[in-house]
C-alpha cells in the first residue's frame, strides 16, 4: 500500500478580486434571497415529508424528508422556450427572475458586449428527471413525441437553456462534478475573466429532485428517515433538496479590486481531489484541507480572517466527522462554522451556489446561521461547529462544497 499523498504547501499568487453585481437563491425556503434570510434568521426549515413524484413510485416511495420547491408543476416556461421544458429548467427560469439577475445580465451585455459575458453553471442531475419521465411513458420502445427533445436529455440542458434565455454569446459551459459543481463555476469564471477572455460572467447552478437521486442515495444507505441533523452525534444521513441560484461576476476596476466602490467580492478559490474513493471522503480530509488552504492563499488571508464558514455538512456519518476534523486542524476556535442543510436539504449540484449565497448574506447582513435540527455535537466537532445562530459583522466568509469522486472546492468571499 503506497503512503498517502501528503499535504503540499502551495505558494499561490493572490487573485484579483471579482465584483459580485447580483446574487440570488431559490430553495425550499422560498424564492429569492430575502426569503432565505428570513428563514435562516427565524430558524424556519424548509424540509417536509417526502411527497415527491412527478409520477407515482407507489409503495416504493421513500420514507424520508425533502426540500421541495412549490409551484414548479404549475409554471410552464414561456412559449418561446418550450423546447427546453423540464423541471430543472423551470427552476432555472424561476431563479433567474429573482433579485435583478436578468437586469444585471442585460447591463453586463450592454456594457461589455454579448461575446464578452460567459455562462458557467453547475448541475449534478441536469434534467435527467425528464429522461426518467420519458422512460416511464415509452411508446413501443420510443420516447413519446412531446419528450423527444435532444437538448434536454443531456447534461448541458441547463447551460443551453440559460444561454438562449439571456442572449449571451460568451463561453457557455455546464460544470458537472456532482456536489461541488456550482462552487467550481466561480473558479472557472474567475479564470475566464482573469485571462481576458470575458469581462463578466453569469454563474450559478440548478438541481431538481428526481428518482435517480432519491433512490440512488437510498441505495447507498445515505438517506435519513428524519430531517437531517448535520454534525449531531445521532445523525443518520441526508435529506435531499432542490434549488437554483445565480450570481453575476464582473472584473473590478483595477487589479487590487479598488475603484472607490463598495460591494461584495469573490476573493479566492481552491480546488482539489481526495484521490481516495468514489463515494466516501478521505478519512483525514486531505482534499478538503487542500481546497480550503488554496482558497485562503488566493485570497491572501489566513484562517483567522474567516468570520463564517458554510460547511458541506451533509449529515452523513462519514462526511461530517471528516470535515469537522479538517476544520479543527485549520481554523481557530473562534470561527463560526455551520451546515445549513437542515434548512434546505442537500441540493447536490446547486449546493455550491445556494451556500455561497448564504455566505454572502452573512457578509451583507451579519447573520451567521447555526445548524438546524442538531442538538448534541459529534465528538469529532471542534469549537468551530456552531448549532446556534449568531449576529455580528464579518469581513470574510468561506463556503465548502465536496462531491462524489472526491471532488472538492472552497470559496472565499469578502467586501471591497
Amino acid at each position, binding site marked *: 500500500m503506497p503512503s498517502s499523498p501528503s499535504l503540499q504547501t502551495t505558494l499561490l499568487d493572490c487573485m484579483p478580486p471579482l465584483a459580485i453585481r447580483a446574487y440570488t437563491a431559490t430553495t425550499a425556503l422560498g424564492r429569492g434571497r430575502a426569503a432565505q434570510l428570513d428563514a435562516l434568521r427565524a430558524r424556519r426549515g424548509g424540509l417536509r415529508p417526502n411527497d415527491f413524484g412527478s409520477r407515482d413510485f407507489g409503495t*416504493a416511495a421513500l420514507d424520508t424528508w425533502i426540500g421541495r420547491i412549490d409551484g414548479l408543476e404549475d409554471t410552464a416556461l414561456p412559449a418561446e422556450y418550450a423546447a427546453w421544458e423540464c423541471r430543472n429548467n423551470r427552476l432555472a427560469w424561476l431563479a433567474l427572475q429573482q433579485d435583478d439577475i436578468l437586469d444585471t445580465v442585460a447591463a453586463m451585455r450592454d456594457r461589455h458586449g454579448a461575446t464578452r459575458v460567459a455562462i458557467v453553471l453547475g448541475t449534478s442531475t441536469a434534467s435527467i428527471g425528464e429522461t426518467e419521465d420519458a422512460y416511464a411513458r415509452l411508446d413501443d420502445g*420510443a420516447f413519446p413525441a412531446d419528450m423527444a427533445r435532444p437538448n434536454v436529455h443531456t447534461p448541458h440542458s441547463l447551460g443551453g437553456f440559460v444561454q438562449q434565455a439571456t442572449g449571451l454569446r460568451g463561453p457557455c459551459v*455546464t460544470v458537472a462534478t456532482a456536489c461541488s459543481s456550482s462552487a467550481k463555476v466561480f473558479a472557472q469564471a474567475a*479564470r475566464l475573466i482573469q*485571462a*481576458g477572455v470575458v469581462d463578466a460572467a453569469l454563474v450559478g447552478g440548478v438541481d431538481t429532485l428526481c428518482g435517480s437521486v432519491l433512490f440512488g442515495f437510498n441505495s447507498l444507505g445515505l438517506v435519513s428517515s428524519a430531517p437531517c441533523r448535520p454534525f449531531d452525534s445521532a445523525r443518520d444521513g441526508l435529506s435531499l433538496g432542490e434549488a437554483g441560484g445565480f450570481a453575476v461576476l464582473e472584473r473590478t476596476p483595477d487589479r487590487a479590486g479598488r475603484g472607490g466602490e463598495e460591494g461584495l467580492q469573490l476573493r479566492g478559490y481552491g480546488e482539489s*481531489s481526495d484521490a481516495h474513493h468514489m463515494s466516501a471522503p478521505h478519512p483525514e480530509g486531505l482534499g478538503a484541507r487542500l481546497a480550503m488552504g488554496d482558497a485562503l492563499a488566493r485570497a491572501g488571508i489566513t484562517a483567522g480572517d474567516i468570520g463564517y464558514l458554510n460547511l458541506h455538512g451533509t449529515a452523513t456519518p462519514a462526511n461530517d466527522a471528516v470535515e469537522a476534523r479538517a476544520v479543527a486542524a485549520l481554523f481557530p476556535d473562534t470561527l463560526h462554522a455551520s451546515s445549513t442543510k437542515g434548512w434546505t436539504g442537500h441540493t447536490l449540484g446547486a449546493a455550491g451556489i445556494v451556500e455561497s449565497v448564504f455566505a454572502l448574506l452573512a457578509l451583507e447582513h451579519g447573520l451567521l446561521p447555526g445548524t438546524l435540527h442538531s442538538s448534541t455535537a459529534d465528538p469529532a466537532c471542534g469549537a468551530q461547529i456552531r448549532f446556534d445562530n449568531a449576529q455580528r459583522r464579518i469581513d470574510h466568509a468561506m463556503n465548502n462544497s465536496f462531491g462524489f469522486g472526491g471532488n472538492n472546492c472552497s470559496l472565499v468571499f469578502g467586501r471591497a
Partner: protein
Amino acid sequence: MSSLSATIEGIGFWCNGLPDWPAARAYAQGAGLPDDAPARPSPQVLAPNERRRAPESVAVALEVALAACLDAQQSPATLASVFASTHGDLAITDYMCSTLVEDPRALSPTRFHNSVHNAAAGYWTIGNRCVRATTAISAFDASFAQGLLEALLQLAAGEPAVLLVGYDTASPGPLAPISHSEGTLGGALVLSGAGHIGKPRLRATLVDGNVQPARGALARLAAGNAMAPMLPLFDALALGDDAALLKAGPGRVLRVEIAHG
C-alpha cells in the same frame, strides 16, 4: 479576445479500430486500419477487476489519459485535469431510467455513483493518487472546445501542465435516436505552458462563425460519436496542418492555430 497558447506535450487516442495515437496518425495519413485492434479499451490505471467492471466511458477516458501522459513523459499524479464529455455514460443513464420504471428500490449503488458526470475524473485521480484539481464539463457539441479553453485558462492561471480528455460512448436503447452517439471515442492532450523543440504549439482564439462538416479521415471514421467535434484538431495534428476549427457554441468557433515543432 487575446489568444491563449500551449505546447502539446503528449497525445492519446482511442476509437473503434484505432487503439492508439500512432495507429490513428497513420490512418489519418492514409494507412489502413490495424488488423488486431481490441474491441474495448483496457485502462492500465485500474486494477484488473475494476478494469473489467469499469463503465465504457471511464475505460476510454482513462485509456487515452494515461497514453497522453506517457507520451508527454509526465506523471499523472502531478497534473490538474479537465474531462469533457457531451453526454457522460449513456449506458448508465439507460440503466438508471429503466430501473426506476421497473423496480426503483433495486438501483445499484455502484452504478449510481458511477452515474456522475465526473466518474472518469474521479477514477483517474483515485487510480493515480492525484490530489490536484479535476473538473468535468459538458457544452453539448461544443464540449471539447470548451474543455480545451478551460485547460488553457488553467495554464494561464499558473498550472505548469494540464491534462485534457474528451470522450463519449454509444447511445443504447430508447436514448439512441435522442442522444445520438455511436461507438467509443476518446482523445487526450497533455498541455504545458513551456515551449519545447520538437513539440507542436497551439494558439486558440474564440471567433464568430460556423464550423463546416469535417473531411479528415479520423473525422469521417468516428463521425457518429458525440465527441466527433474534437476530431478536426486530431486530423490536423496527424497531417501537420497549421489550423483547425472547433465548434465552441452557437455561431462561435475556437480557431486553433498549430505551429509544428
